[in-house]
């Protein structure tokens, strides 16, 4: 029985400090571990990389015989994580072994300097990456010469997707990912005999997807015609109420019915007022500047005098438990301000520009969801704040996003919020729903 050098090292160090019984136990453990790993090597669990590694191993074997003793080094110059690289290494070694390659013990696994004389076969595999994606390279050094193998690699589906794990209190469900930017989305749950419907608002189109047997299919798509250029930091909002669809875009308003492209009609709508968050206690409408990315002072009561709000990005309304009135929070260029009537009651300088309020789902709790500060190049968070006594109290842990939150709108029942975020690791835009769970 030959132990790998690492195992021997561990056993020797322990032998000077432990009892005979303990040594025997250790030895048995090592033996069982070796046996288990040997079994695992014979029957490795299926991996999404299997077919690609097989192709790589075949290409390596095709450039020269790998039959015989040798070493295998693997260097990872790509964005693949260490565990994936190790998995690929093990898989490659297994496949080459099946073609007659016998690893010289103690040389390959560490990738360290080779002890002279050089092994008959020396393979250096590099997991590299270029502008277009992954590329795997193998340098095969044998007595008959040196060969190079290159394999452009398309990662297996789903491998690059970065799932975000929700934390207590806030729960996130991802509904859709796409490479094209998204502005908003709406989900119509399944009803008797009718599959669920997903509507995705992109800068240039509205797309309808229907789920059939768990797979989403495009059922309709409607282009959004606009004669004026979209502003940078384009924003859009979609409301779905009893099958009636309203789409708000800068300077344009579209209406239609969910489920068919034929029912979507768009027209210039620079003066169309956008709904803002109501938190289930009655909302307001605001004018959206058609050439910018912000809302203007509400015009619902022009006779009220000077503007109450500076231009702002988003707003939330909450019920004040102390004063029995409404508190409005608007997020602008330097954090958010809490308005009580015409008075600015408090300033929250650290808040991001996207906020929304939800229904009072937990007793005594007026939740406001607040996206993080930072910019489009950084990761983001959504944090619940409880508004109490003019103060904002962080409640629970924030949800983490691997990129900026691009939109945060409440649903029409104010029980959850729709979030569009941009995953900087994958480059994909993600549509998800955020809801609050009480009692955890």
């Amino acid at each position, binding site marked *: 029985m030959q132990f790998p050098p690492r195992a021997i090292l561990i056993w020797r160090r322990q032998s000077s400090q432990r009892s005979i019984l303990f040594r025997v136990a250790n030895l048995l453990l090592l033996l069982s571990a070796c046996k288990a790993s040997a079994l695992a090597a014979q029957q490795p669990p299926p991996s999404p990389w299997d077919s690609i590694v097989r192709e790589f191993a075949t290409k390596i074997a095709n450039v020269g015989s790998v039959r015989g003793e040798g070493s295998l080094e693997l260097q990872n110059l790509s964005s693949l994580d260490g565990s994936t690289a190790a998995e690929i290494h093990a898989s490659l070694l297994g496949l080459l072994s099946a073609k007659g390659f016998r690893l010289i013990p103690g040389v390959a696994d560490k990738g360290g300097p080779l002890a002279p004389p050089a092994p008959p076969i020396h393979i250096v595999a590099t997991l590299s990456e270029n*502008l277009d994606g992954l*590329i795997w390279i193998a340098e095969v050094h044998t007595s008959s010469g040196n060969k190079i193998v290159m394999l452009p690699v398309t990662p297996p589906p789903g491998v690059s997707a970065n799932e975000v794990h929700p934390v207590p209190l806030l729960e996130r469900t991802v509904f859709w990912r796409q490479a094209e930017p998204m502005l908003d989305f709406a989900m119509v749950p399944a009803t008797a005999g009718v599959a669920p419907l997903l509507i995705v608002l992109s800068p240039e189109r509205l797309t309808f997807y229907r789920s059939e047997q768990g797979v989403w299919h495009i059922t309709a798509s409607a282009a959004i015609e606009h004669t004026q*250029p979209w502003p940078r*930091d384009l924003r859009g909002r979609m409301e779905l109420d009893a099958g009636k669809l309203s789409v708000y875009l800068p300077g344009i308003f579209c209406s239609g019915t969910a489920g068919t492209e034929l029912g979507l009609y768009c027209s210039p709508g620079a003066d169309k007022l956008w709904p803002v968050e109501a938190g289930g206690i009655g909302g307001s409408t605001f004018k959206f500047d058609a050439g910018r*990315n912000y809302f203007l002072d509400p015009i619902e009561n022009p006779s009220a005098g000077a503007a109450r709000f500076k231009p702002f990005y988003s707003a939330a309304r909450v019920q004040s438990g102390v004063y029995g009135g409404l508190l409005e929070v608007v997020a602008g260029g330097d954090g958010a301000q809490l308005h009580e009537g015409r008075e600015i009651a408090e300033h929250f300088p*650290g808040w991001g520009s996207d906020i929304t309020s939800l229904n009072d789902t937990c007793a005594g709790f007026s939740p406001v969801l607040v996206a993080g500060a930072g910019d489009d*190049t950084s990761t983001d968070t959504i944090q619940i704040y409880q508004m109490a006594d003019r103060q904002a109290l962080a409640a629970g842990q924030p949800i983490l996003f691997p990129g900026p939150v691009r939109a945060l709108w409440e649903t029409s029942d104010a029980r959850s919020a729709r979030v569009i975020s941009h995953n900087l690791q994958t480059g994909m835009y993600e549509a998800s729903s955020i809801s609050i769970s009480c009692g955890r």
Partner: protein
Amino acid sequence: MKRRAFQFLVVASIGCVALSLHSARRPRYGGVLHAEVGVAVLSIDPAFPIDTTDQMTLREKLLALVCDRLVTLDEHGRPKPALAASWQTAPGNKLWSFRLRSNVMAQDGAPLSADDIVPILEAANPRWRIVAATNPDGSATLNIELPSPNLSLPVELAMARNFVFRRSANGALVGTGPFQVTAWQGGRQATFTAFDAAWQGRPFVDSIELKMGRPVRDRLIDLETGKVDFVDVPPDEARRAADRGARISASLPDELLALEFSRGPRGAEDPARRHALAISVERTALVNFVLQKQGELAWGPLPQWSTGIETLFTSYPPDPAQTKQLAAQFQNAPALLLGYDGANALEKAVAERIGVNAREAGIRVNTQAETGAGEAFDVRLVRRKMVSPVPRYALMDLLRAWAPLVGGEVVPLPDPPTPEDLYARERAAIENDRVIPLVYLPEIFGLSARMRDWESPLPASGDGWPLAQVWLEGDGP
């Protein structure tokens, strides 16, 4: 009481976090962005003659603020629509059609037409035959006929030489880009004002005030004192600037610093001397000490991020014993004369370091600044900027530049090339040591604390500085 105390603690902690964070994430409109650069150009017009590659680079950056191309590249180097909304090729890939985006306003208030574009593109590409046509729906198409097949013409159209614009009656350049030139003092300063009707959307900042020809010391002082928002920083100054608290951003490396042996001089024709010099250079020391860790070791012609295969070229780590053994063969030969751009402090420092390495190895090398008076150098230190992030175009450009040194005709690479094709051509270009890649340099910028949403663009993509996308901290949206 206990609950109140808890609330106080939470609110206090929020306050602390708030102080350490910037304010709102969503971009803010307005403000003047102040920029300073070291190079100066007299005009951004491509028809205006240019003296140096640094000036060419700056002109392309400024053109990108004012003008557009038919096609740009995405982050993977694949073409994506810009002024051309779509395109197609006829069988044979010699005839291409580009359907133009409708309703694109130029900065003089009139739409950009296909007829405006034709003479501009033909001037940049004299071998192309371009015809404008009108489609039944009123949109316009440019039909481009090429002298030879080109499967990747859209990639070529994304290169910086293919900015399009209209010439006004007095010959001035009228673009469709996010900014328009509203003041210009050639070689000194310029004002670029946001173009409200830009088809990609108005920039967030109202204007850019640019000063050109500013010494690096002045630029960095102005950055430290908050007088400017954006400066370019030489790689060898970046570390010091960062140590003094400057906000530094580096691109992926896109400029090759290499030694190029001339054809003809006796010293340059000796392959053993070339090889000895090649293996004497301590690239790691160049990057770590001279470049202050701002750069990437270059063993092959292209950077690793572009091809992914440059790791195969790390073939000769410095070997003092082997170098001395080689050098002993020609210890009585005249010294090699190494030329560099004397106006560039970085090149001077690199050249001197190479001279030290060579002398330590027993190779006689004298360094001398080029004066432009036609000195007969054996070897030159040369900077080569990538013309495209796409390896095929970047390598072809290098091969054409090196053809007089390496000899032979430059055979086009297959389109698209396989990794094996690229590797073979790269290796052939450097295997006789007439070209010795040393270091790949990034572009480095100093940014003010109030500048937000800065993201380094894909190098060599022709996109220029992303100043239309950045915004400045301030009051209100």
